[in-house]
């Protein structure tokens, strides 16, 4: 197995991280499905359930399962922290060099796990599931998701067909260093390119939701757009933020010059009766804003360099002897 900077004395080969939130009906079935998929692989594995502050009996069910199966670890969060923090809690606790994440609602099929592992063995750092026959409502889920995936691919330049699928396999070194926060789980492929991750996609099956309700709504679109913008900037900024800010500043300078040109042309040609104060004001505003943008760029630069992007910590590399 092509481990990168392998850590020798891990007691398990595979950690499966499952954030659950109010999934009392699903957890037992999910647990047995995972067992029947993973046990034949003859790997040492652990299953980490992260109970994200469920208000139903999810935690009690998990406790029961825990009694019957030593492979299980249950982490209960104090309150509903959200999917990304819950996943990070699981990643932080995982001990294996390879981690798999999946949804707790039985929509992912654990039988796909060997496919993901095979890809990891080929040397990829991140393997994303791609739900080929997605069993969700067309209007409220599939179409928005398709648009979002297009958009994410276009903006970030990371062409993944299904960012929303939770079934993913990671090399632990990479995902632990990424330090996900807020709603970043949607952008794991994009963010992982920061670390130079090699990404693969694998078609996985998808089942309709059997129990409970979907915890997503359509209202997140605006949030996703701004998050995407932030990710784009982070990927671009990882080198030199000032480049981007000075480009923006240059654009505004160009606009100011263009305005000077237009106004002086109109003023001199006199074919349109024009005042003087307002064009002058416009140009001054533009110039001021251009300078301001450049100054912001300097601040961004100092934040990026001083705040410790710690790039060297996240770069993945291969070492062979």
């Amino acid at each position, binding site marked *: 197995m092509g481990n990168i900077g392998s850590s020798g004395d891990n007691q398990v080969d595979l950690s499966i991280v499952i954030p659950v939130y109010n999934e009392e009906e699903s957890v037992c079935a999910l647990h047995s499905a995972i067992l029947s998929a993973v046990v034949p692989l003859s790997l040492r594995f652990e299953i980490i359930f992260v109970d994200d502050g469920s208000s139903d009996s999810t935690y009690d069910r998990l406790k029961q399962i825990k009694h019957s199966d030593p492979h299980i670890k249950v982490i209960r969060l104090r309150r509903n922290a959200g999917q990304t923090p819950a996943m990070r809690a699981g990643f932080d606790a995982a001990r294996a060099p390879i981690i798999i994440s999946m949804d707790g609602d039985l929509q992912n099929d654990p039988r796909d796990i060997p496919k993901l592992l095979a890809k990891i063995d080929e040397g990829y750092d991140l393997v994303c599931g791609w739900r080929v026959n997605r069993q969700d409502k067309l209007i409220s889920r599939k179409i928005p998701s398709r648009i979002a995936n297009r958009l994410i691919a276009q903006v970030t330049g990371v062409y993944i067909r299904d960012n929303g699928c939770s079934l993913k396999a990671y090399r632990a070194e990479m995902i632990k260093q990424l330090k996900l926060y807020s709603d970043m789980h949607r952008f794991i492929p994009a963010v992982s390119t920061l670390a130079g991750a090699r990404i693969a996609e694998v078609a996985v099956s998808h089942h309709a939701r059997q129990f409970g309700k979907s915890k997503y709504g359509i209202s997140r679109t605006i949030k996703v757009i701004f998050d995407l913008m932030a990710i784009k900037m982070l990927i671009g900024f990882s080198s030199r933020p000032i480049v981007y800010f000075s480009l923006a500043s240059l654009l505004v300078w160009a606009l100011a010059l263009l305005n000077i040109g237009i*106004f002086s042309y109109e003023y001199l040609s006199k074919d349109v009766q024009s005042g003087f104060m307002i064009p002058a004001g416009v140009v001054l505003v533009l110039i001021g*804003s251009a300078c301001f943008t450049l100054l912001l760029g300097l601040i961004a630069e100092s934040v990026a360099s001083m705040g410790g992007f710690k790039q060297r910590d996240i770069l993945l590399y291969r070492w062979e002897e």
Partner: protein
Amino acid sequence: MLAESIAAPVIEAEPCADWAARMRRVELSIIVPVAERHDDLEGIYRDFSQAIEEHTRSFEFIFALDGKFRRLYGDLKRLKEEDDRIRILSFNSIFGESALLSVAFRKARGSYLFTLPAYRQVEPYEFSQLYEALKGGADLVVAARHPRRDPLPNRIQAAVFNRVAAGATGVRFHDIACGVRGLSHRTAEEINLYGDMHRFLPALAVRQGLRVREVTVNQDGRDTGCRVYGIGIYVRRLLDLLTLFFLLKFTRKPLRFFGFAGSAILAAGAAISLYLGVIRLIFGEPISNRPLLLLGVLLITIGLQIVFLGLIGELITFTHARDMNDYHIDEILE
């Protein structure tokens, strides 16, 4: 005054004190931060220790003095000679109440901690009620004075402040200004205080998923002074609330806030410019004498700047992602 405050000593400055604090446990730590006004501390101390002794004799009083109470320090030191359950923390310079509390939280040896304001707010006998509530499993117990006995201006201020605070934090407390609070040792370790955030401790705690209970208590009969502050104080409170609102909602994702505000302004500017462009290019009307043009350009540039600020915010959160703690573990079963 300044020279005095520089000379004020710090008790227990050595780093191993924290470890030592954990070794010598008592049941209860009472923390009295003295940052602004204070009443007769000795009286407060006697009244409350009497009330506490009905429950336990294993307690300590920590008086935490901000860096300007030289004389008070001497008085307390004399008091300490009588009773070694008193500990004194005194800052070299003025750092404010939140700093006092967070240092005192670290130094406290009690399994349960109580904060008492340095002035009379709550009848000492009400301690039992609060202590029971805390032992009943709450992570944080806050006292709410009811019915209020102080003059009308105080009550009006308090009511307005509580409502505004509830609006900003999304959590309704009836007396958020009351400094009498009880917390478990674990809560004290988890909570992160700075600036003037100690005031909003209950709201912060709720947001962190802690179990917070509000207990209605009788107001101390001597808490009757009419308090009207300078305008600066009110402005500061408002700023605190604004900060808190932002921190609670958008710390992790500043661009969601700045991006939304910025692009709304940007859109307004673009609409104006578009309108002017249309009437200039299609209808041939002159626009260089229209102040609206200036407004349009101004809105566009301001909107852009706000978005840029949001991007810088994102950069800052991202660079600190590894120090952030987004989740709090309640229990692990292995």
